[in-house]
């Protein structure tokens, strides 16, 4: 696909049109919000634009860009919280009703996923959404294979533990 994209077309423009949706899916799973996903993708691509030669030279350009996106996500969330918060939907209020029990497992895990630390969340997304091997996840996160396995293991353990807590505790505990 990449060879075709490079055939006579401005690579950046074509790449953006082809891969933005895919990158948005990854970014959405990482950030959990549409606004956050769009910001992350836009920031990543615009930042890469001045050095697009590096992307073109990569064996798998989309992997290179995804790696940058994950790096941007991890680094971005390390910084102090943003002052401007914009919601595309109103946050739900906990009103004491038994809403949690209406969630199926997928919704519950989605909620719990967002409680994981950023690097754990990124590792889990890259493994269980993109099915990347440890080596590629390590390259994306800038860490060793052993660290990747540890991140995923701890992430799964946390999800499992919190899911158990949520099943046995009051509704509010699921969102703590």
């Amino acid at each position: 696909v990449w060879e075709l994209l490079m055939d006579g077309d401005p690579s950046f423009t074509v790449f953006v049109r082809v891969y933005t949706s895919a990158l948005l899916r990854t970014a959405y799973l990482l950030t959990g919000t549409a606004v956050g996903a769009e910001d992350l993708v836009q920031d990543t691509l615009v930042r890469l634009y001045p050095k697009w030669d590096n992307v073109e030279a990569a064996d798998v350009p989309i992997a290179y860009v995804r790696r940058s996106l994950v790096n941007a996500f991890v680094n971005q969330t390390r910084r102090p919280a943003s002052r401007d918060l914009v919601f595309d939907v109103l946050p739900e209020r906990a009103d004491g009703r038994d809403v949690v029990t209406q969630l199926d497992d997928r919704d519950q895990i989605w909620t719990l996923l967002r409680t994981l630390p950023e690097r754990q969340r990124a590792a889990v997304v890259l493994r269980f959404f993109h099915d990347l091997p440890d080596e590629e996840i390590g390259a994306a996160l800038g860490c060793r294979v052993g660290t990747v396995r540890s991140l995923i293991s701890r992430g799964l353990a946390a999800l499992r533990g919190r899911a158990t807590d949520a099943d046995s505790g009051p509704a509010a505990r699921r969102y703590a």
Partner: protein
Amino acid sequence: MSDIETALRASLAEHARHAPAGATLAEQIIAETQHTTPVEPRRGRQWRTWTLPLIAAGSVVAVVAALAGLGAVHHGAGPQPAAPAPSATPAPSAPSAASAASAPSTGAPQPSSGSTAITSTGLGLTHFQVIDMTFVGAQNGWALGTADCLDGSGKPCAAMVRTTDGGATWRSMRQPAGAGVPLLTCTDACIRSIRFATTTIGYAFGDSALFMTNDGGATWTRQPGGADALETLNGNVIRLVSDHSGCPGPCNLQVKLAPVGSSTWTAVTLPGGVIDTGLATLTRSGSAATIETSAGQAGSMHSVWLYTSADDGKSWTKRPDPCTTAGAAAVGAPQASQSITSGADGSISLLCGGVNGAKGVTVTSTDAGATFRAGTPFQFGCCAVIGAASASVLVVISDQSERSADGGHTWRPIGDTALRAGNLTFIGFESTQVGRVATDAGRTILTTHDAGRTWSAFTFPGS
């Protein structure tokens, strides 16, 4: 495969379908990169972080003066249609409404006659000078300023640039079509400030014009009226509007609120009825907002009032000028508000100037303006303006710039000689650590990442 892994895969696959569609964003990204011209920094220094502007401030008088002093020449930077171009801004500390006469000068470009629409040459901007800046997040920033017209005439044109890498590189960007940026005089569509709420939603405004973009500046839509000041935080926008006919300053000052990106504004009543003021300054930090007005002649210390809000502008409390109360009590001599700012911690700080050569003093509130605590009287230099990283860390920039780490009780000189109010166009702290000063008439941006102890310089090409 465990149950949790199976459920996790299913959950991720399911929720990935809820990700936003990419077509519109892709075109925005392409437009942003393809329709702009890179502006490389002259020096090799890199911005390390740009964080959100925490300080919301009103218009800097020097900015107005700079724009007013520029010729009516439009700058169409980058590969964009020849069109008048305004510029944008961050959140500076603002000279007090009462101290307009002593506001820092800007060394503005000389006026030029006529109006020239410039088409893109593909060259980078030269001699860019910052008038105002705004940042959303650590990487995305926009600056309003002037630069050499692209026709090679050497005349100054209004220009808008943006960075997506924390300020390491800047690109010229599209400005509101039809919104000439009057450089010699502020006419109907004069734009002198810029604010962005998100990477896509932004506002460019002046007293009589307000433009909004919902696509990162690719297109701008003019809104009714103008804005004396506008600040966006917490998903909403506070806008000060007034009419400018029949009195020297903003007449019938009103506060309007809108959700970010909305063109529907709701008026909020300020206590005290109709407010005719010489100048109005708006600052925000968190949910706290402060309006400072000068209801009489500039410099008159009894004419200043503060309106404070702790709920993002929904309700306001009118308060007397703390310089005439806490400030004067500390100095033992009359004081007049000279500059106001908000700290990243929500504090409000004012620089009070002594009358007839008396010492000045800083006053700071940590309870949304209910009470103010004065520092130790100090002989500040000429034309001082204040920036606040927090209630404790204050920076006063004048011809002898000083820093206090104890709320204004002790002051130590800042070594960087570039930090002089005479050439300053902007000062603002984005967090308790990161602050920025546009100095040398906006040619150089000084940034601190250690609450004002040390500063690093970035100079635009051609300066």
